């Protein structure tokens, strides 16, 4: 079901043996044109049934997460454990550029198909491993989940309200973060391999991916001032003012970082509410100047925002170059005029009937456009095409492999 692509990675071959922590990595590569072959266990990936489901009948493989993260891929089944299965895998590796895997550290090695074995067959191969804690270290065999990784990576502690328990982000963002790092690492290693003929083992730790994303605004500051970053509601410590403010019909988010943006905001508050105090020069300059007046400034802003609807504050605020934005529900995002004007959402036919709409391209390449080339593959949908068409197996051989539970 995958059409030939026009994407930048057209002609690259990727093998993906990934659970939900690595599926988005494969999607990023596939939607950019790479031929990503998803290798599932015989019977299919259990991730096909992770709720919520598109069609609620329990027998159907319609997990939204699976449908989303497996677009543009081809799908085959393979049991890696019997020798015949390993041989087929190694034949595929000969013609591949990258292998993405999410098994426990040491699993592929124990089967005799670890990085060294793959590199002997194909010196340019990049093996990208995505695991909870990385391939090494005293806790590399610890169990994890998206929530546990988000906790250990420091994200939970700095999300939400001060007096609530730490809380996670929606949408398995630990796995997404590991996948986005892994996709870039794989390409960095691939560029290096193209230049030098030598591939490498890429070792991505989900805990480290969360840590890098979380502490990008926190560590240096903590080391500088000794204040450990923690939950503080909707505002950011370094930006004054910042946070969610009430309007007549919902919330807007506001952030001020530049001195000019503060001036624009203070002028608007003054114009609208007659407040003279807000024009006091002691509030002007970078955010640090306003730090000790944060609560008072928040009151001034509420007096302004409560007079209007979200849409009024948003567009009039932006006309004045102030970073006001609506706090959107998923429904509001789905009908957002800006996304609509850019034809962001993409519709794709599902092979079993009906259409689904997907979030579209995160980036637009002028010469090699991103595209969704097909729905997530069915279980073993491309077995014939890959095993017979590309590896040259006969119908009898394929039948025998099927009878022995290899595919």
């Amino acid at each position, binding site marked *: 079901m995958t059409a030939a692509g026009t994407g930048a990675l057209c002609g690259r071959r990727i093998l993906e043996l990934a659970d939900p922590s690595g599926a*988005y990595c494969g999607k990023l590569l596939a939607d950019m044109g790479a031929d990503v072959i998803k290798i599932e266990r015989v019977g299919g990936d259990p991730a096909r049934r*992770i709720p919520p489901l598109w069609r609620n009948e329990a027998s159907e493989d319609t997990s939204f997460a699976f449908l989303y993260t497996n677009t543009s891929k081809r799908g085959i089944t393979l049991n890696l454990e019997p020798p015949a299965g390993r041989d087929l895998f190694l034949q595929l590796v000969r013609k591949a550029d990258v292998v993405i895997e999410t098994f426990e550290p040491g699993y592929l090695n124990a089967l005799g198909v670890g990085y060294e074995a793959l590199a002997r067959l194909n010196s340019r191969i990049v093996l990208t491993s995505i695991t909870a804690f*990385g391939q*090494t*270290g005293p806790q590399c065999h*610890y*169990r*994890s*989940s998206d929530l546990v990784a988000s906790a250990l*990576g*420091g*994200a939970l502690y700095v999300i*939400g309200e001060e007096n609530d*328990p*730490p*809380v*996670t*982000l*929606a949408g398995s963002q630990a796995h*997404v973060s590991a996948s*986005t790092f892994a996709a870039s*690492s794989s*390409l*960095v290693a691939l*560029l290096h391999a193209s230049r030098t003929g*030598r591939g490498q083992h890429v*070792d*991505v*730790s989900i*805990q480290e991916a969360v840590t*890098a994303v979380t*502490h*990008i*605004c926190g*560590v*240096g500051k*903590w*080391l*500088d001032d000794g204040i*450990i*970053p*923690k939950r503080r509601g909707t505002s*950011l*410590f370094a930006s004054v003012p910042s946070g*969610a403010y009430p309007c007549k019909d919902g919330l807007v*988010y506001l952030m001020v970082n530049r001195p000019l943006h503060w001036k624009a905001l203070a002028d608007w508050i003054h114009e609208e509410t007659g407040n003279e105090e807000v024009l006091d020069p002691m509030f002007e300059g970078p955010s640090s100047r306003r730090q000790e007046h944060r609560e008072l400034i928040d009151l001034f802003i509420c007096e302004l925002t409560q007079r209007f609807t979200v849409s009024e504050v948003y567009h009039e605020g932006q006309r004045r170059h102030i970073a006001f934005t609506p*706090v*959107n529900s*998923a429904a509001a*995002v789905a009908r957002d*005029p*800006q*996304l609509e004007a*850019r034809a962001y959402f993409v519709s794709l036919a599902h092979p079993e009937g009906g259409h689904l709409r997907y*979030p579209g*391209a*995160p*980036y637009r390449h*002028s010469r*090699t456009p991103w595209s969704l080339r097909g729905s997530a593959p069915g279980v073993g949908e491309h077995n014939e095409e890959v095993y017979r068409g590309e590896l040259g197996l006969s119908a009898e051989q394929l039948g025998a492999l099927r009878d022995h539970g290899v595919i």
Partner: protein
Amino acid sequence: MASSERAPAGGAQALQGLRVVEFTSGMAGPWIGRLMAYCGAEVIKIESQQRPSVVRLYVSPRAPELGVQAALSPWFTDWDAGKRFVALDLTRPEGVALARRIVAVSDVLVENYSSGVMEKLGLGYEDLERIRPDLVYFSSSGYGDTGPCRRYVSWGSNIEAMSGLATLSGFPERACTLTQFAYPDAQSALHGLFAVLCALDHRSRTGEGQRITLSQLEATVCVLGPLLMQQLARGEEPPRLGNASLSAAPQGCYPCRGEDRWCAITVEGDAAWQRFCEVVERPEWKEDPRFASLTARLGHRAELDAAISQWTRTRDAYEVMHTLQRAGIAAGVAQTAEDEFRHDAQLKARGFIEEVEHLAKGHVLAPGIPLGLTGTPGRTGRAGAAMGQDNDYVFGELLGMSPDEIRSAVLVGAIEPAATERAPAP
């Protein structure tokens, strides 16, 4: 991989030989160059005294009397370490001419100025493609370069709110939940890096450059894909789940001994559930029909969470984690920056935290870059550079300008001399 392989003294780096020039502010743009520099690319950041990046507007909390300390900003280390810095006045044609000469010897351009600014400066893709046909030209903006809102201003936290992330995340009773780390900035940078690398792979095989635009809003909606699809397909608002899961129970973040200490726990599958009952000293739960299956446990989540909290509350968070992990159950402390950077045995064993050379402070710690390139390990170069720190290198060595030429470019105001400032006492 031994920890020593993370930051070797020498050794080949994956992006060696690649040159990147950037016109950036904030984080979503600069982090791309930071990561490419980490992989060995030479990254030149063009700045201007006229319009410093907000990242440089830093007042040290320990020495506010010194005012803005542009080279000491810790964010500047996190997002810009390892780059080269030149200062040009781009409002002067001579400044723009020099910027174009840098572009002519670069492979990649990264910019996140407001929509239309680069074109107005004469540094748009059409202008630069003529002098560097295989250039990969990457632009990042809040809303993308088309559409009615393309000129709107936004920061990472605005995008958290715009994209639906803030409304979809958090406990059911909270209208919106935000991070302290402006998550969309990081994801925009990571998607941008990937987009640039894709274009470089295409270029390596065809010799062709191209223009790439990224909307930070769209990249953030992408990381929420399954939730948006639920809305698009069925018109349903995905419920806020807090720390709960639809496919594992119990799961949550439970209070432990001490102030604001918590441990996250996920019990996935019936076998793990049976082991969990033993560890938390509730063997009777194993036979309890209320908890006999995932569906049953999901239905009695509140009772389970209350009982588990009772067990965790009197225990140290790390003790909870290690005890559960020994029984093969996923558990992890909600760690603070200090926990991770001072005490985390796993991060330490892997050499994750980087010590980075800093021109004013000696050394600083920085969060590691988890690219995991074991064959060509990355490393972060010098931090704490001032604007124009590398004027001599870039204009002299790289562009081959004579000291006289450089001096006259400074005199006409095209090149801005390097800024100097005092460091606060440690």
